[in-house]
């Protein structure tokens, strides 16, 4: 079991925020870039600059393979999924456009949308069921003649609920509506194929299930769509240097300034790890851990679990509450007494908590990952049982 600096064993259950540990290859790739390469990609023509560019190309190619995209240059790198979502939303929507989203979105979708709404974009937020599911029929009913975009999270970061992306993609495509998917929680964790799912814009996070470092993420843009998509930033790209106009082609249009090359070296190693292990194998293990946990706490009195009852309908994310204990108290106790690290509160998704009925109390969220173990689940169940234990627990808490 990993130890924290004070030598207490820790159980890391916050993979929905950022994954840990990372595969050894990630750090090795970053150290290799730093020690052996160090060049600025796409700028100078010397060996080290080209080598840096090759590393980034390989990261693009690995992601293209993972997402079922046949042209790796369709992927632009950003510092995180939030930046990618901002490019997609602010970049495509104009005043007078109508956009549809769900009531389970993260603030990285809702905040840009609410801002755009204040600037004249019309917004429809389609309600999801109590366990976080979006019904495609409700999306269909929300479509208007001037609907330009449908933006939906692939899976909720609060309840783990997996949305029916392929069905939604069909609906969007058949109505001439663009489809943007927030894959922050699912890139590397669930199979994604941008063609089969009819996805036009895919925002992904590098530092969660893709096992890259923080400071990496990106946006897949369907062929041709980049011409209509405004960039968030403009600047030097190492291309068309005689011109003072921003390039209008992928990926340069959305990659101004020096990239996070060392981070992308690490991300490349992370994605290759996912491809080598296989998304199916990763999914299988995560589903098993989640299933054991859900079954275990369902048996505990005083514990409420949110989201779909079956692990197959969710990612490895479980939000729950313990009667008589606030989420933050519980999280502190879990950390200090049991070494279990998790996230309490509203998880940057107030609308999701409203949907499941936990606003503004919040929930305790466990986010399991590929490197978690069965024995950690067993320990967690014991810990929750202790916290839910009522008077005995409260007395001990007062020590």
């Amino acid at each position, binding site marked *: 079991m990993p130890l924290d600096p004070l030598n207490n064993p820790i159980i890391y259950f916050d993979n929905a925020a950022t994954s840990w540990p990372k595969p050894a290859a990630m750090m090795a790739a970053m150290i290799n870039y730093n020690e052996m390469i160090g060049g600025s990609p*796409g700028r100078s*023509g010397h060996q080290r600059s080209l080598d840096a560019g090759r590393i980034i190309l390989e990261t*693009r190619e690995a992601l293209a393979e993972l997402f079922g995209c046949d042209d790796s*240059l369709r992927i632009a790198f950003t510092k995180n999924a939030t930046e990618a979502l901002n490019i997609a939303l602010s970049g495509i929507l104009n005043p007078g456009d109508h956009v549809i989203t769900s009531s389970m979105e993260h603030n990285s979708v809702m905040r840009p949308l609410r801002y755009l709404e204040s600037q004249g974009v019309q917004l429809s937020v389609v309600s999801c069921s109590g366990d976080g599911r979006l019904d495609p029929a409700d999306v269909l009913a929300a479509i208007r003649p001037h609907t330009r975009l449908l933006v939906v999270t692939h899976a909720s970061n609060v309840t783990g609920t997996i949305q029916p992306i392929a069905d939604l993609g069909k609906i969007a495509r058949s109505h001439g509506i663009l489809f943007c998917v927030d894959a922050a929680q699912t890139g590397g964790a669930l199979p994604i194929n941008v063609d089969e799912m009819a996805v036009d814009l895919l925002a992904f996070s590098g530092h969660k299930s893709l096992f890259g470092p923080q400071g990496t993420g990106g946006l897949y843009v369907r062929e041709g769509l980049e011409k209509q998509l405004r960039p968030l930033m403009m600047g030097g790209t*190492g*291309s068309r*240097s005689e011109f003072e106009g921003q*390039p209008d*082609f992928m990926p*340069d249009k959305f990659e101004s300034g020096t990239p996070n090359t060392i981070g992308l070296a690490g991300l490349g190693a992370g994605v290759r790890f996912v491809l080598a292990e296989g998304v199916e194998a990763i999914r299988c293990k995560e589903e098993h851990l989640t299933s054991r946990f859900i079954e275990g706490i369902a048996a505990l009195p005083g514990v409420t679990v949110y989201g779909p009852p079956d692990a197959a309908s969710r990612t490895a994310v479980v939000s729950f509450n313990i009667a008589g204990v606030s989420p933050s108290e519980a999280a502190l106790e879990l950390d200090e007494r049991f070494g279990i690290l998790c996230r309490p509160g509203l998880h940057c998704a107030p609308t999701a908590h409203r949907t499941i009925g936990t606003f503004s109390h919040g929930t305790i969220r466990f986010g399991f990952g590929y490197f978690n173990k069965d024995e950690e689940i067993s320990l967690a169940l014991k810990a929750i049982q202790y916290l839910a234990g009522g008077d005995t627990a409260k007395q001990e808490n007062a020590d």
Partner: protein
Amino acid sequence: MEGQRYVVFLFPSVSYALKAEKILKAAGIAHKLIPVPRHISSDCGVCLRTAEDRQQDVERELLGKVEWDMVVLL
């Protein structure tokens, strides 16, 4: 090599040149990424040099996979 004539493929940016390099390496066609010669104007600072008599082979390999701006005889 005496008598060897080269062409260079010019690209919109280095990302394209590197992708083309990867494709040609897999196809076993001799190539080299070089700084764009002074007398040629290009959108990006590196280009891909190949033997003139392999130009059509290169075009066939790259077509549909990566865009190039133009081919110039050196």
